[in-house]
């Protein structure tokens, strides 16, 4: 199978300015939420994006969709750079990219029926009339495993898992190519998580969707992804095929992260050697010089404080940013 690049991200940066003063507002610093990411997403794949809270996963997803305009970098989608796009052209491209959010409660307007919520993008983009949209909404509800007769109900009448299905139906309405799934199952109970993950997998098979799947649960990410990228404090530290990453993690942060994930098997847990990371994640306002992981890294040497490690390919499609990893 030849891989087609659907999304090409190069040197993506998103800084949030910190402004002080009420009369004369001046910038006193910046939250370096995302600080130079380079990677591709292939058509039809699921790229998992993992890392601990605050490392910049959501910002990355939003910067790709231009919901946050990037500070610098290139985001090429189907061959066109979104960062330089404006107005009608951008609006048109946005139809091809949708987002599913973590919180199925906060992301649905409580005063709209789920039918209106799902149909809204169709009407806003002038694709269908209200009447036509009603039929499409029923199709979409059935597609995500909800009773089409529920179109007139309000979000609060649904459980968390059902609300997440509504979010999925809305994302599918415009037949997008790419869906950014921002922790879509984190707020759900385990038995419900499996329902939503199975649905996402089925839809991908049916429509050839491409997912950027953001999560902090590495077990679920391994399950759903073809490739996985690991972020730490605004940068990517490693990117590889799912099995390659889990069997041959090269970056010390990836290794620690994997060893911290509990396994639901007491025998496996007994045999495991856990690598406990010391310390806590530093602030993205004033990140460590050189390698951002160096303050917690068991391998850190002098060079790690002096130079930012390059993002390089060390095996086929296996990227890593660490001075201590041999070429």
């Amino acid at each position, binding site marked *: 199978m030849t891989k087609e690049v659907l999304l090409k991200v190069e040197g993506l940066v998103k800084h949030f300015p910190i402004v002080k003063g009420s009369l004369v507002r001046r910038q006193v610093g910046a939250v370096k939420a995302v600080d130079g990411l380079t990677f591709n997403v292939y058509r039809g794949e699921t790229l998992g994006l993992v890392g601990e809270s605050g490392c910049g996963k959501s910002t990355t997803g939003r910067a790709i969709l231009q919901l946050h305009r990037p500070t610098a970098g290139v985001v090429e989608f189907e061959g066109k750079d979104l960062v330089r796009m404006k107005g009608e052209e951008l609006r048109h491209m946005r139809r091809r990219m949708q987002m599913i959010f973590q919180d199925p409660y906060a992301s649905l307007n409580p005063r709209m029926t789920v039918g209106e919520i799902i149909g809204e993008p169709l009407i806003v983009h002038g694709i269908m009339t209200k009447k036509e949209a009603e039929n499409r909404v029923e199709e979409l509800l059935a597609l995500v495993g909800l009773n089409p007769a529920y179109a007139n109900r309000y979000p609060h009448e649904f459980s968390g898992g059902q609300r997440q299905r509504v979010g999925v139906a809305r994302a599918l309405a415009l037949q997008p190519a790419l869906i950014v799934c921002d922790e879509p199952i984190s707020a759900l109970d385990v*038995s419900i*998580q499996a329902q939503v993950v199975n649905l996402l997998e089925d839809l991908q098979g049916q429509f050839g969707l491409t997912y950027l799947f953001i999560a902090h649960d590495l*077990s679920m990410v391994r399950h759903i992804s073809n490739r996985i990228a690991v972020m730490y404090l605004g940068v990517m530290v490693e990117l590889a095929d799912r099995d390659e990453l*889990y069997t041959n993690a090269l970056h010390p942060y990836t290794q620690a992260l*994997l060893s911290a994930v509990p396994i*639901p098997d*007491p*025998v496996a847990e007994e045999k495991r050697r856990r690598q406990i990371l010391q310390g*806590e994640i530093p602030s993205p306002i004033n990140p460590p010089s050189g390698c951002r992981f160096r303050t917690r890294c068991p391998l850190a040497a002098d060079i790690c404080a002096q130079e930012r490690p390059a993002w390089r390919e060390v095996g086929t499609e296996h990227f890593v940013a660490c001075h201590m990893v041999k070429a």
Partner: protein
Amino acid sequence: MADLLNVQGLETQFRTREGIVHAVNGVSFSLKEGETLGIVGESGCGKSVTVMSMLRLIPMPPGKVTAGTAMYQGKDLLKMSNEEMRQVRGAQIAMIFQDPMTSFNPVLTIGRQVAEPLETHMGMSRKQAYARVAEMLSLVGIPNAKERLNDYPHQFSGGMRQRVMIAMALTCNPQILIADEPTTALDVTIQAQIVDLVKRLRDELGMAIIWITHDLGIVAGLAERVNVMYAGYVIETAQVKPLYANPQHPYTIGLLGSLPRVDQRERRRLISIEGLPPVLYQKPTLCPFAPRCVYKVERCMQENPPLMQVGPDHFAACWVDTATGRMRA
């Protein structure tokens, strides 16, 4: 070994606008000295209400413990005077929660708050108490513990606050530590630090632990025995290894099947349990899991199964032997 704590037939209800919620419906279990018991189940299944009832921390009204006993050192916690109960809670049974901020007073320094129980329950002087607090804080891995005694709760990160709460819980050398989802809000590397810390303290101090969580992974590495709860019932209980190797209740089987494993190569479809857990407004006359169960038979719709022995020290509340399809009783 003797039971340190023995809970029998615990029942707790809440009066709500929709009706009376049967939150805990006859829960029984025991805890031995130094043992770690895991209580697992999805949100709303009655994990917190079980231990809060036992410690008499249920808001009444709307809550009410309607039946049961909780024997601790020959006395029923549910019948103790308020004064006796306060003594037990402060010094012998300690509790830590998911959100440490709710257990701290934001306007008192950490030193002041952690020292308080030492002064009131152990009769230490202020100076002795502060020295012991500094010791405890370094024991739980707070860097420069002495200098941080005068800091306020908000000056600590989430992971560090959780450590301080553990220190506070352990200052009086409790016999039982009850941990209610203390790592749920934390990132996985910080969670690993906290679990590692608790294991180390358990080995050093020898307290028994009740660890409540929805995460079957954490329990696998921490507990010796596990209670699986569903709709206010313990539906399966066993030693940790047989429970994971050979789960007997369809709910436990489903839960374990719905979890992907980080060490698993092959991609199998996850088992999903269709439907939702019930909120019980009356005592069920059927198995509470029956509406979601793929193994159910007619009897399941007519009679709620009691816990039945299904193996050595292994009990499950299910009419059907899922391995053979035969009836258990």
